Structure formats: C-alpha cells, structure tokens
C-alpha cells in the first residue's frame, strides 16, 4: 500500500520553533554548531551550519527542505564539540545509519526532530511556472507527483532518533515496501541487463556526488579513492564505469536507507536506485526482513549467526 504524502500546514510555526530551539542550544553552549538549512539563492533550502544564535535566525523549514544533513557530521569528526542537527523521519534514518555504523558518537549530538508528512522534490518544483510554484508552496493543493519519490513509500514520519521533538508525532501506518522499478530489471535476461547497465553507466561523469551524499557511504577512506590497491582505475572506460557503480551498490547493500539522495544529486539523471532497490528486495526475499531499509542493530548482511543454514553448504 503506497503512502499518501501531504504537506504539513504548520511549517511556518515549526520553522519558528526550530530557530528558537537552535538559538537556545547555541547561546547556552549546548552545541557549538547547528546543522540545518538556509534559503539558497533561488529560494530552495540548502545545507547550512549555524554557529551563533543570530545565525540560527537564518534556518528555514519548508516543503523543499529535502537535503539530508547527517552526512555532514563526518566533516566534524575532529574535536569533541557537540553538534546540533535537525532531522525529519527519513533524515533520522540517514542519521541512524551513521550512528549504527558507529561513525559518529551519539553523545556529541543534539538531535532536533520534526515529524514530517512529505517533502517536495526541488527539481520538480523548479520545473513549474512561477505562478504554479507560488500556489503549490503557499497553500496547495499539491500534485502527488511533486513529492520526493521516497515520500511515496515512507512509513517513518516521525524521527527514529531525537532529543527534542518540535511537534506532536504523526500517526504511523506501516506497509510492506514495494519495488516497482525492479520488475523491469528482473525481466531482462543477462545480456539485456548487461547492455542496459553499460548504457546507463556510460552516461556517468564520475563526479562522485552519489557517493558523497550517501549516508551509507561513510567509510573512513573510500576504496574508490585508494591508489594502492587500485580498486578503481581512473580511466572512464565502460569497464571502470561499471566497477564504480557495482562497487558502490554492493558496498551499500544491506545498509541503503532508500532515501534516493543519490538520484537527486545526479546531474545526468541516472536511475541509481534501481540497483539499490533490487538488493533491498532480495534481502526481503532471502532473509525475511520486511523493511530492510530501516537501520537495525542486527542486519542480515552485517551479522554472523553460528546457526546459519548456509554454513552446512560450506562445511
């Protein structure tokens, strides 16, 4: 059953509360910096690190506050300052990914949570006429196709990690994830699929935006950056392009939170979630995990069970 995303009508109040809470945390010295969004040049929210109470006044929370922020924590590993961060439901999954992967200490965080019923895709909204855009952002109604893809299956409206919640939690309706985009990939035979993927990856410009935005791509040093051993040749040949994307897909398999940020930042529009979705679907079918994109303490591809039935096959 798909989700039916809507826009929160009280975002202006939430934004005021967010600014107040961030200003409080900064002025009382509870955090040294607060990660949120500010208004970008074209009005679309962009990631922003406020370091004073006055700067907290620049924070925004609106239907386009889509970019996740947790990945920026890895820029702040040095030192022991506390960091504030705002997350909605899916943003908290990104944060939890980094916490479950033990890449940032929970005790250095103050998490401000905002229940969320849906966020618009900035690119889809940018494509609207000026009048349509104003109408949509002001009071709707909003075409469901304008929401981020991830909103259409989201069943985590409330942050799974938070220290302060800025509004009342929303009712939760659980549903089994569906992966409509995988069917086509699965229907292809091997040669067709190889040809299809070659064609996709040939369009890649190797800018690494997908990796850099991905909360599951959080290794201390990415193997794709290493020279010795050289996992990824620097030539943009068809073979290296495939290696790049296969390595990335396999490395995040089992840890992908299905946020689709990789697709959002891809300047050449590659449908990168197709392969990630395939792995998620496989995890459900092979290991019986119904919601494999939700970070958990025990994850099928991240644990070892002495009673694993597969062990018999391998002596």
């Amino acid at each position, binding site marked *: 059953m798909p989700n039916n995303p809507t826009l929160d009508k009280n975002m202006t109040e939430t934004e005021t509360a967010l600014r107040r809470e961030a200003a409080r945390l900064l002025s009382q010295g509870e955090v040294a910096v607060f990660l949120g969004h500010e208004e970008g040049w074209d009005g679309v929210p962009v990631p922003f690190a406020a370091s004073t109470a006055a700067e907290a006044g620049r924070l925004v929370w609106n239907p386009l506050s889509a970019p996740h922020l947790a990945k920026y924590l890895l820029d702040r590993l040095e030192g022991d300052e506390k960091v504030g961060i705002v997350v909605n439901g899916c943003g908290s999954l990104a944060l939890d990914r980094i916490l479950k992967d033990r890449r940032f200490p929970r005790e250095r965080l103050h998490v401000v949570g905002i229940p969320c019923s849906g966020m618009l895709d900035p690119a889809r909204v940018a494509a609207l006429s000026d009048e349509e855009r104003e109408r949509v952002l002001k009071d709707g109604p909003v075409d469901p196709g304008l929401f981020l893809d991830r909103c259409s299956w989201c069943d985590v409206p409330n942050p799974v990690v938070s220290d302060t919640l800025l509004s009342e939690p929303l009712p939760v309706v659980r549903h089994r994830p569906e992966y409509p985009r995988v069917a086509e990939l699965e229907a292809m035979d091997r040669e067709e699929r190889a040809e299809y993927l070659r064609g996709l990856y040939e*369009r890649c410009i190797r800018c690494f935006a997908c*990796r*850099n935005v991905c909360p599951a791509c959080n290794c201390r040093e990415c193997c794709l950056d290493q020279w010795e051993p050289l996992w990824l040749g620097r030539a943009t040949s068809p073979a290296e392009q495939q290696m790049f994307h296969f390595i990335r897909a396999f490395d995040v398999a089992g840890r992908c939170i299905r946020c689709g940020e990789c697709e959002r930042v891809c300047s050449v529009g590659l449908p990168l979630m197709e392969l990630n979705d395939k792995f998620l679907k496989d995890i459900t079918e092979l290991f019986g995990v119904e919601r494999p994109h939700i970070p958990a303490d025990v994850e099928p591809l991240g644990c070892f069970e002495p009673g694993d039935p597969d062990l018999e096959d391998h002596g």
Partner: protein
Amino acid sequence: MSTSLASGAPTAPKAVRLVRAADLGRWLDALSAGSRVWAPQSVGGRPRYRELTPGREGRLDLEAVRTVDSPKAALLPQTEPLLAYRRAKDPGTGRPSLDLTPVPPAEPVVLFGVRPCDAAAVELLDGVFLTGDFVDEHYKARREKSVIVTVACSAPDRACFCTSFGLSPGSTREADVVLYGRSGPGPKAEPDAYYCVAYSDRGEALLTSEASRSAGVVEPPADEGQKLEDTVAAFRNLPTPLAERVGRVDVVDKLDGLFESPYWEKVAARCLGCGTCTFVCPTCFCFGVADCAAGGRGVRFRYWDSCKFPHFLRMAGGHDPRPHKKHRTRQRFMHKLNYHYHRYGRYLCVGCGRCVESCPVGLHLPQVADEVRGLEG
C-alpha cells in the same frame, strides 16, 4: 584560434549563409563524412554534449539552453591516452627497455551547436595549454583540427550570467561560425532557419564547402542584409537573467586580502566535496596522469581530476597541502576569481551557469563572487 588573450571586437564576417532547421540533420551527416562531429543531444532525458555516433542513443537538441556537460571534452577528453608502452629487451645489449608507441594523431573535429559562453571558454583553455613556456602537444593537435560552430542563445535562463564577464548571448569569441536563429531571440524561439556567419578562415571553408552546400547551406536572400544585422545585434544585446543580479564580476582585488577569511569555512560547510562543478565546468582543466598496465604492457593516460577531491594534491609519503574541505573549496573559487586573473589577466569563468544548475547543494560561483564583495578584509 587566437593565441592572443586580448578580447577583440567582433571580427567582420567572412561568409554568410542560411540553413533551414529541417536541414540541420542533413548538414551534420555531411560534416560527419570528413570529421568527427560533436553536438548537443538529448540522452536519457538530459541535454548532453557528445560526439555524434551512429547507433548511439541521442537526439540532436540545438535549443537546449545548456548541456549538462560542456564541449571541453572534445578538446580535453575526460580520459586521454598519452602513450602506450611495452616491456622489451634491447637487442644490442640485452638490457630491459621499453618500446614506446605514441598515440595516433588527432582527427579533425567539428564542435557543432556550441553556446557562445562555451566557445569563449575555449579561449581560456587555449591560454592554459598553448601559451607560456609549455605548449601541450595533445591539446594543440586537437585544437588545430577543430572547427567551432556556435549557436547564439535565444533565451538565456535564470542560471545564465555570461554578461557578468563581458560576454553576450551573441558572442563570437573563438567561434569559427555562429548560427543565429533567423527569427531573432525570444523565450519560445523555434527558428525555422539559421543565419550562418563565418568569422574565421576555417569557418568560411566549412560554410562554403561542397558538403555544406549540398546539404542545404545556401546563400541567404539578397534583401535580408539589414535583417541579418538587426538579428545579430539583438542577440548581442540580449541580457542574461542571473547577471542582472550579480552585475559585472570584478573581485580580484577584493580576494587578494581574503585568503584567511572565515567565509571559506561557511562555504565548505555546505560543499559536498564532489566534483560535479569542476566536471561540468567549461573552464576547469585540471587533470591527473596514471598508467593502466598489465603483463608488461600499458597505457599512460590523463584523466580529469578535481581540486574538490580529497586526494587531488596528496603527495607520495601522504602529505596533503589541502587536507580540509575548507582549503579545497577555497582553492576552486580563488583559482577562478583571483589566481587565474593574476596569471592570465582573465577570470576563469564564462558565466555558463552549469555550477548554478548542477551543484547538488546550490553552491556556485556567482553567489560566491557576489558574497565576497561584502566581506571585510
């Protein structure tokens, strides 16, 4: 190709022709017979600038405001072999040696449907690769065999700011031929024909060639001289939306004193550290050199690298002079708006708007150029 970096006034046309939009495909086919041809194409739903290859996905898209990637790859390929080698034995002494095979010479290439800003970017690349103490033979070989056919912009969009750098939607800089939509500029211009104006000998040769003539590139009606002049002027005087906000960019002196500004920390806090801006940029030219070798033979090639990547400057032994994102982000903007100016007398930006459109977190050059004006220092 100009070897002087002085910006010249538009040179006098050497030839004028007319081509119907419906004949463009035919013209490209005719040009393909003697050259490799690159052109803006729709690939996977996005406008891309790539080589026209029979059978490969892609549909000519001359009216896309800007392609995701710039035409620079035609002159500076993302991956470019420099030489091939094979381990051998010197027949005289029996000592190990290397057989070196140079790469095949560059083939003629037509860069078709280039935007005026991107053609102007080639002038900046020429400055880097063709002037000074070192001339890059690989770039030079490609450049000497290139013909640039630009298409003047009918409808600059909200990310366009070429006029901030003294260019215009009808700029002829580094263009051998410019196509001007016959109906003039306008938001929904779908010209049924283009005036084709040659500004160089190479352009004249291309326009007046038998291949072009037989593909429908013909003399314009004799009574359209004034209309052509008015059309050219209309393109040249067209404003660009983002430049209205940014104004003329001239911040080299200001940035002289801002190397240590805390501003760069703010910028770095937003930067994702990916290489999108550098790879889509028509003027970013940094590259690395690596070998792909196995079994006693190999290829040495260069590849686009990015100052935004954490390993860009890391040296043998592990030292990195720019260890933090702050250093790397600062480098890119300082290079474009200060260092390059000091060295070449030109800003390393043509206002194409690709960083505005492609940066995943809305961090782009016009904003930085505007913000540094207000900084103290």
